[in-house]
């Protein structure tokens, strides 16, 4: 459920509306779900967010993404090694 898509906040329209770019496509999304006393729209410029039905629903942690991928790459290497060992 819940089609969500990662995009980069590339511009601000108002204090709770931003332009998000996804693969060359821009759309306005509401930042309402990401703002609070500590977080103003300006702080989000350049960040990656998960977009759902016109709202930015979550910040994306790119380091976490890297960590996940690094884990998988490590796993792949181990597989290859064990394969080579076996083969």
């Amino acid at each position: 459920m819940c089609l969500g898509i990662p995009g980069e906040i590339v511009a601000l329209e108002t204090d709770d509306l931003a332009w998000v770019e996804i693969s060359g496509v821009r759309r306005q999304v509401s930042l309402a779900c990401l703002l609070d006393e500590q977080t103003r729209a300006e702080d989000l410029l350049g960040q990656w967010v998960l977009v759902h039905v016109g709202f930015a629903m979550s910040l994306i942690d790119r380091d976490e993404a890297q960590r996940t991928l690094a884990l998988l790459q490590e796993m792949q290497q181990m597989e290859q090694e064990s394969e080579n060992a076996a083969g």
Partner: protein
Amino acid sequence: MQLVDEFRDPALAQALLSRIDQLMTQTPLAEREVVRVMEVCGGHTHTIFRYGLDQLLPQGLELVHGPGCPVCVLPRACIDTAIAMAQQSDVILASFGDALRVPGSHKSLLQARAEGVDVRTVYSPLDALELARKHPEKEVVFLAIGFETTIPATAMTLIQAEQEGVDNFSMLARHISIIPTLQALLDDPELAVDAFIGPGHVSMVIGTAPYQFVSQRYQRPLVVSGFEPLDLLQSIHMVLEQLATGQPKVENQYARVVSEAGNAQACVAIHALFEPAQSSEWRGLGAIEGSGLQFRTAFSHFDAEQRFAAVLQSEPAATPEYACCGEVLRGSLKPRACPLFGRECTPEHPVGALMVSSEGACAACYQYRGDETP
């Protein structure tokens, strides 16, 4: 596409698949006749069929497609109500594209539109609010569906309508909460599922904490997962590892998006507008206590059911749901085992809602694997 394509790498998938194979051929899992993993979320079902992941999994590992598609669980009566509202002159009824094809007792919203009522597809509830601003002479009703991923958008839209004083805007809200739904599934004695893949996007709102009961009370592993092929394969690997070690817990494969706490602002918005309804009826799932949401009194002026109460009194009772959908939703029947599958019930003319959204277990099965005989 950044943050998407990386998670579609075939070489990494191959590595995960070998790991999964290994786990399944080793003790203790090799001793099981079958391991059943339910992906709760229709988005996962979609990815599985889109990439044919199920075809790549070893024998004995079975994916069970769960109830996590808000469209699929939408009861006929809700569509009937939406049509009754749309039939009022002056009403524009708006909803997401997937909702428009859901069959009601007599017809879908798309069919009602062909007969002359004003039904619009929107991408966002904000677009429905914009319709209301643009057509002050009309009454705009938004048919609001969705799990916790979508409810904050609904809530934020209503907050904006309230602030601007847009008074020709209301919602027919049929939101559903994931936790009571999971709870009901787990309480079902027929449930034959060993582990769960948890819904990534719901979890970015509610966090991972609320799933603890799954591992603690029901002793089932649960891994919150992203939606790309690698996400799913990794999550499957993770639940298998838990099953292998016999230590069920809640894990988070989708840490780039989901945190343990979820999105506080979004949760606040939900709770500001809505409160749990006592018991709600879902297509295929029956009545589930606390699974539905209702408007808090302070916002009940946005409740389309109150606004149109006079019209709705005369609503006929919806025709009953087809029984097989429920069994499929609970994972106790494979779509192809339904006698209607691919015959009376197709994506073009869905009988049950599972055939409507491409997230629906039956539609995904038909759309992506229509050539296989049952």
